[in-house]
């Protein structure tokens, strides 16, 4: 050991880093888990193009003729069944519609299912064409598959936000409560340790890992799925750091009074679970009614996710994400101020 006096903030931060690096489980949850999740969801919702529509034709004298006409359309997968079985399967959702052959064929379909509606248009077109209808004009279709508009492009920024929230809240909140239950906080209080340096060490340790965490997930998204990064890295870094501060603040607040690990875990979930749902991690919050959307936009994770998507997918500038940054700053300031006021050292 060197004889020069070590710096307390460096020693405290090193302690946090060592504690994390020497805990293999924590490493898994912070680094491997988000990547595994992105991989699984990216595979499950990959863009495959439209699939063949499953339809049924009622068995009867004209069935084979009608089925042959329909099979000429590449988008349809045609099954010939007796009437009762076909209608059962329609109600069960296996078929988009059922055709009853005849001089004027009947189509049974569910008008509330968009897939059923699409099938009706395709079937109508196919039958009219087979009966000799001529199209008055020709229409060309131009297909695109552009990175930035797929589900995985939506998902990666969401997972990034989720990860920044999770590691920030758990890393800080759990660590503080653990120190409190172990009476280490009290032991530190008996020493001349500066309380501000203790709290700062959690934030510094977070920042060290934050870069690695973010880079791991972004690089994975880029290599495996071609998820774009259209904005500037500097703007991204600013958003990520502000997000990490916000959740470090909330983590400190949640941990400021909790006496037990169970207590803090409950509070963590109380804070985080609503954001998993309402902050547009796995699906867009525009699916919610307007009044709910207003509330969702005030949540810190919503602001972080929106800002991340704006930078990664739309190449937004710092100014372009000012509203989101404002929401996060407000949360960070309020959370830290309250946490310092309420903090219990023993």
């Amino acid at each position, binding site marked *: 050991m060197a004889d020069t006096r070590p710096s307390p903030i*460096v020693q405290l931060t090193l302690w946090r880093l060592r*504690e994390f690096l020497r805990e293999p489980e924590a490493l898994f949850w912070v680094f491997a888990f988000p990547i595994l999740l992105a991989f699984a969801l990216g595979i499950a919702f990959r863009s495959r193009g439209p699939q063949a529509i499953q339809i049924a034709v009622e068995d009867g004298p004209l069935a084979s003729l009608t089925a042959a006409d329909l099979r000429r359309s590449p988008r349809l997968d045609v099954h010939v069944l007796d009437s009762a079985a076909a209608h059962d399967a329609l109600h069960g959702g296996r078929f988009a519609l059922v055709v009853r052959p005849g001089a004027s064929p009947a189509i049974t379909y569910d008008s509330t299912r968009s897939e059923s509606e699409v099938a009706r248009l395709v079937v109508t077109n196919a039958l009219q064409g087979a009966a000799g209808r001529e199209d008055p004009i020709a229409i060309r279709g131009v297909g695109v598959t552009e990175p930035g508009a797929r589900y995985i492009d939506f998902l990666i920024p969401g997972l990034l936000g989720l990860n920044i929230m999770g590691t920030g809240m758990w890393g800080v909140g759990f660590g503080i409560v653990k120190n409190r239950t172990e009476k280490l906080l009290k032991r530190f209080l*008996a*020493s001349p340790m500066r309380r501000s340096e203790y709290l700062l060490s959690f934030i510094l340790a977070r920042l060290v890992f934050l870069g690695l965490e973010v880079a791991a997930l972004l690089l994975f998204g880029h290599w495996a799925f071609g998820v774009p990064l259209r904005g500037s890295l500097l703007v991204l870094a600013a958003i990520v750091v502000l997000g990490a501060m916000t959740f470090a603040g909330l983590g400190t607040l949640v941990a400021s009074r909790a006496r037990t690990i169970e207590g803090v875990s409950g509070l963590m979930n109380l804070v985080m679970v609503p954001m998993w749902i309402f902050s547009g991690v796995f699906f867009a919050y525009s699916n919610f009614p307007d009044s709910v959307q207003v509330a969702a936009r005030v949540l810190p994770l919503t602001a972080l996710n929106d800002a991340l998507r704006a930078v990664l997918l739309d190449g937004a500038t710092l100014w372009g994400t000012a509203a989101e940054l404002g929401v996060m700053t407000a949360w960070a300031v309020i959370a830290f101020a309250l946490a310092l006021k309420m903090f219990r050292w023993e």
Partner: protein
Amino acid sequence: MSDFALVCEGLVKCYGDVTAVAGLDLQVRRGECFGMLGPNGAGKTTTIEVLQGLLEPDAGRVEVLGLSWKGHAAELRQRLGSQLQETRLPNKLTVEEVVRLFRSFYRRARSGESVLAEVGLVEKRRSWVSKLSGGQRQRLAVACALVSEPEVLFLDEPTTGLDPQSRRQVWEIVQQFRRRGGTVLITTHYMEEAQRLCDRVAIIDQGKVIALGAPAELIASLGAEHVVEFSVGDGATIGDEIYLGLPGVEAVSRDAGSVRLTASRVHVVVPRLMHLLQDRGLELHTLTTHHATLEDVFLALTGRHLRDG
């Protein structure tokens, strides 16, 4: 400069309806090892935590190294060393990392190596705290308190739950610190520890000091230095005055079916006692004798055992 390292006057501390410390007075001289002895819940830990500046007293005056906590907290924390009950040091750090962490908090500190040598943990310096035995952990806790070369060392039940050998190792560390002129305030419920280490002892019960003095003085206050403890068969009782009639018996007390005689000359009392019991046709079940200890002092003062709490 005050002659006293630590002073408490009329200290009161309550937790809700429970009065933990009820008007306690204490004066610890510089360079002495002072013990607070008492059962669990007597108010020892509360008193030591008030002196360490961890708790605010409800009433009373507290002075540490001639200063009050108000306005001098930062300075005092630099000059005191503490080992608290139940602190669990970071499990995933190595011994030397823990010492370096604590060392970083102090303006003036010893080298980590010399502290580890003093507590006998040099070979373990690269081991994680989680891999240490109970005794090694406790020595590490004391090392963290010694790393700043404090003027006053607070030890709150430093050897509770340790085996006799580990206990002696901790005692050795405390004695070395004293040889360098340090002041020690230690709480314990082991009489042997108090007798071995302390210049003076305060026996504390229900938040108050009920006896104060050097261990030998307190024991001498019993009037005799031996205790003869025995139990007899049936319920036939012999009056205290008959026992007191035996030569050298100073006091009689009864405790859970057995009789305790405080006596000066065991070799005279025991044969006479045998004779007495035989005459009355009583059968002796158990008989033990020992040198009087602080436990006997506590028993004489309160009628209870220290360990009963």
